[in-house]
């Protein structure tokens, strides 16, 4: 049963992460073009650092860092009179009430918490990529539009929300659809975050830990399992490509861009 559910986990993660990452990306892009200098630095650093480092390193980093971060904050709130250091050698010790999830919590809370950290990690990483796309899209909005808005006496904030944001989506769509493809292909990394996804089952059912030194008397069935996964992802990519193409056609219909005429 868990095996079939794992496919659902992947789809659910995609459905939740895509809008969340888009929101992160919007925030990042807005920060990167802010007039307030520290905020602009923050936005640009966020984009540059996440793009410059392998995403798998972030997945491995955030799964521990987020967990410890949450527990540390809760520790400060719930146990203010705790006098021992939090890091003791190679142990991370917080008081019992600060544990996340609580050790007395039922199993489903653990699973939801794992899923939540996975969504947050994906959103932070892919938010940076989305921020890069949206940042470019905001700059691609014809300058005349912005100047006209200013001539009408709109403030910067009004220009941003009424002129730039509604018009940027056409320019952002090619980048965003590319990002969607990348996001689909990143989901097998979920198992790194401790969520039972399809690759988790592939490894779990495989059994032996060091297959390199194992001589299989017959063909290893895992080969077929991974072939199945490969077909699943190929089909998923193909279907997405089809629908994104349709969406692009609809969005560019009548627009004064190259896509609108060709």
């Amino acid at each position, binding site marked *: 049963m868990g095996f079939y559910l794992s496919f659902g986990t992947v789809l659910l993660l995609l459905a939740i992460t895509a809008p969340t990452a888009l929101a992160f990306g919007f925030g990042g892009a807005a920060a990167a073009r802010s007039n307030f200098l520290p905020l602009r630095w923050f936005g640009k650093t966020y984009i540059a650092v996440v793009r*410059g480092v392998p995403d798998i*390193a972030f997945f491995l980093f955030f799964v521990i860092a987020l967990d410890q971060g949450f527990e540390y904050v809760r520790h400060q709130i719930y146990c203010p009179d705790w006098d021992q250091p939090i890091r003791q050698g190679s142990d991370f010790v917080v008081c019992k009430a600060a544990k996340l999830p609580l050790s007395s919590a039922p199993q489903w809370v653990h699973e939801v918490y794992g899923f939540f950290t996975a969504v947050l990690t994906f959103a932070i990483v892919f938010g940076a990529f989305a921020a890069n796309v949206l940042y470019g899209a905001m700059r691609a909005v014809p300058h005349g539009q912005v100047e006209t808005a200013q001539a009408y006496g709109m403030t910067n904030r009004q220009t941003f929300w009424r002129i730039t944001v509604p018009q940027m989506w056409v320019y952002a769509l090619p*980048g965003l659809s590319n990002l969607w493809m990348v996001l689909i292909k*990143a989901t097998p990394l979920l198992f790194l975050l401790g969520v039972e996804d399809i690759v988790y089952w592939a490894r779990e059912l495989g059994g032996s830990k060091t297959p390199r030194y194992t001589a299989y008397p017959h063909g290893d069935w895992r080969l077929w399992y*991974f072939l199945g996964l*490969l077909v699943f*992802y190929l089909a998923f990519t*193909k279907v997405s490509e089809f629908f994104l193409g349709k969406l692009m056609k609809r969005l560019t219909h009548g627009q004064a861009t190259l896509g609108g005429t060709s």
Partner: protein
Amino acid sequence: MNECLTTIGDYGLRAVGIGERLLPKTDFTLCQHFTLIGSGMIWNIYFGAIALVIGFVLANAIALAKASRYPFLSIPANWFILLFRGSPLFIQFFLAYFLFLNLKQSFPLFSWFTSAWAGALVVLFLNTAAYSAEIFYGALQSVPRGEVEAADAYGMSGWKRFIRVIWPTSMRLAWPAYTNEAIFLFHATTLVFFSGFPAWQQRGDALYYANYFADKTFNPFIPYPILAGYFILLTLIIVGIFGLINRRLNRHLPQSARIKRPRMPLIR
């Protein structure tokens, strides 16, 4: 300071099996972090650089095949590109590893390919060839018609026209996107030891060692930022080298000509 030099001597080439055999177990110093993760970068650079260079050649061949008007060339090229771009690299590593394991049963030749240095290199090579082929194909399609007509007017045709006019122009057009592909290929090398391929005698890449430290100390805030620092440095070097090549490719053009914004990079 001297202690750190000893550490570098012991572990500087640990990733390729030279030096101290046992990894540090307790009382990790910052110097050990830097040295071991840095020594793991040898593998990342090895995989990335070799796959990139051979992949470049295959990518050009596949891009040409895809642009060909003969279906017996363009259809296999399309399938190749779909297969490697449409599936996660992660799964490709798994699949290749098990495939090589099974092939080993019948052909002893393939026992090489079950170890990372050759097997993962093959996967990365085919993968980057597919991604680059798509970039080069797009560039081939956007070579200005006028340039081809000018070549015709000079009496060039066939191979000569291709090698003197079409190909150089397509490289110029493709270069910004290809730079991104190179960066993300190096990032993708961190996946090697995380999928099927085992790290023999704990000779792993940078992420392998960073993960080792994080597992032992349960403190992600030291090894991963060090890894990030190394990779940002590597990215800057790649951007620098590709920028130099780009300057050379465009040396005949007026320097004020605005360089095209790189398109959205692809990660795997």
